[in-house]
């Protein structure tokens, strides 16, 4: 069994890593990571805007965004992918590569989830911080920029990292619209080999496992460091567990 796995990796590692490139678009694991990173990078500022809208006192801002967030959370990602695949070419009038369709979907999807986390993080700081800032003469946005967001976002770094891991897992949905990512590359390998599907998919599973597990471990290390900094290096009292500052972001699928 192990011998089979090594043989397959030995033969196909380049395909799994970068897809058909240079005989086609970039694919494989590289594409998976680029897609994930890009989605998070764009989703993040988008999420901050959404969070502000949800916290706003203006109903015209609050309601549409609230509806967007609830719909995104209530509908399977698959459905959103299908919608994008249908709408994006329609709206842009061009033949859009599936990569960008998937990117748009993930930005909206992760943006909605992130905005909830950011909103919770801001609320968790309490009204006291905003009051103190306003009392000193800051405007609302000034207070947000210099007082609230720096704290909330710092506290949320672990959540962001775990959202990145979740995004890597979500990119697999691209399979249904033929995004050239790692999963697609693995199914290509399987179609060539035909006789060792178990081995191929095992390699696929283990690859994702290694990547996500490493990133999650990194997240835990960073979270511990942040918790310690924020708690002022207070010693743990008997029987007390260190409290997590971040709302849980256990994402699916």
């Amino acid at each position: 069994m192990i011998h089979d796995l090594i043989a397959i990796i030995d033969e196909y590692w380049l395909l799994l890593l970068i897809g058909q490139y240079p005989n086609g678009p970039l694919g494989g694991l590289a594409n998976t990571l680029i897609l994930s990173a890009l989605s998070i990078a764009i989703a993040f500022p988008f999420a901050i805007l959404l969070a502000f809208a949800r916290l706003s006192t203006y109903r015209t801002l609050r309601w549409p965004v609230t509806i967007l967030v609830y719909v995104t959370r209530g509908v399977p990602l698959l459905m959103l992918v299908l919608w994008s695949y249908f709408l994006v070419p329609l709206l842009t009038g061009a033949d859009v590569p599936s990569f960008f369709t998937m990117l748009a979907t993930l930005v909206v999807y992760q943006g909605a989830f992130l905005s909830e986390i950011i909103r919770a993080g801001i609320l968790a700081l309490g009204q006291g911080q905003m009051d103190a800032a306003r009392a000193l003469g800051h405007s609302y946005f000034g207070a947000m920029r210099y007082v609230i967001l720096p704290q909330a976002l710092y506290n949320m770094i672990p959540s962001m990292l775990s959202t990145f891991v979740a995004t890597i897992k979500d990119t697999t949905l691209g399979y249904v619209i033929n995004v050239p990512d790692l999963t697609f590359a693995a199914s290509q390998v399987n179609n060539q080999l035909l006789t060792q599907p178990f081995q191929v998919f095992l390699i696929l599973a283990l690859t994702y496992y290694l990547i996500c597990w490493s990133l999650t471990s990194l997240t835990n290390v960073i979270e511990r460091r942040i918790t310690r900094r924020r708690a002022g290096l207070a010693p743990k009292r008997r029987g007390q567990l260190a409290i997590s500052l971040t709302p849980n972001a256990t994402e699916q699928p």
Partner: protein
Amino acid sequence: MKGFDLADILANPEYVAMLVHGIEMTFVIAISSWLLAMSLALLLLAIRFAPGRIGNSVVAAYVSYHRNVPTLVQLMLWYFGIYTILPSGLSDWLSAHSAEMIFAIIGLGLCQAAYFSEDLRSGLRSVNPGQMEAARALGHGYVSAMRFVLIPQGVRNALPALVNHSVSLFKNSSLAIVIGAPELSHAIKEIENLSFRTFEIYLIGTLLYLFFSLMIMTAGAYVTWRADPANGARR
């Protein structure tokens, strides 16, 4: 493209039948895998708390695998991988009994069990340590303290997370489309192919999923509300 026309789909008995069948299959998957996941989660928890370090490591490994490998890939490994290396007697039996559904249930159930067991574990851990002390000081043994004091509170604490993950489980049933299970998303795609009314069928599908998700969330909110002792729940 023809104008927007929902009736073209909703008035067509063939399409409606396909939708209904899809909904049925989605619920079969969701409910079966939920039951599997919950029972397995309790078992995992029991193993974790068993004396010795092996139980803890085994469960930790199980949880780690299912949380770090994408659910879609897990399903693929089950259906495209494990299915093909099963002994022929078993795989023949499976083929005759909608293997796609069975593997969807197994794959989703095993995956969610990891999340449920972690939710329950967090719920237990967040119970004030003073509770165990108070119970022991009154003379309760470990099992008695767990049974009457810790676990009731732990489960209550875990309810919000359990509800969230139950909604996720329901939504994940759509992933079974890649292994060919005849659930709702599959039905939607089929109707799309037959009717070419992509927008309408997607809209119907979205509303259906939304409706059921909200239903589950509401039921969950009710259960959480009832479980709070201040709301008159009897022990």
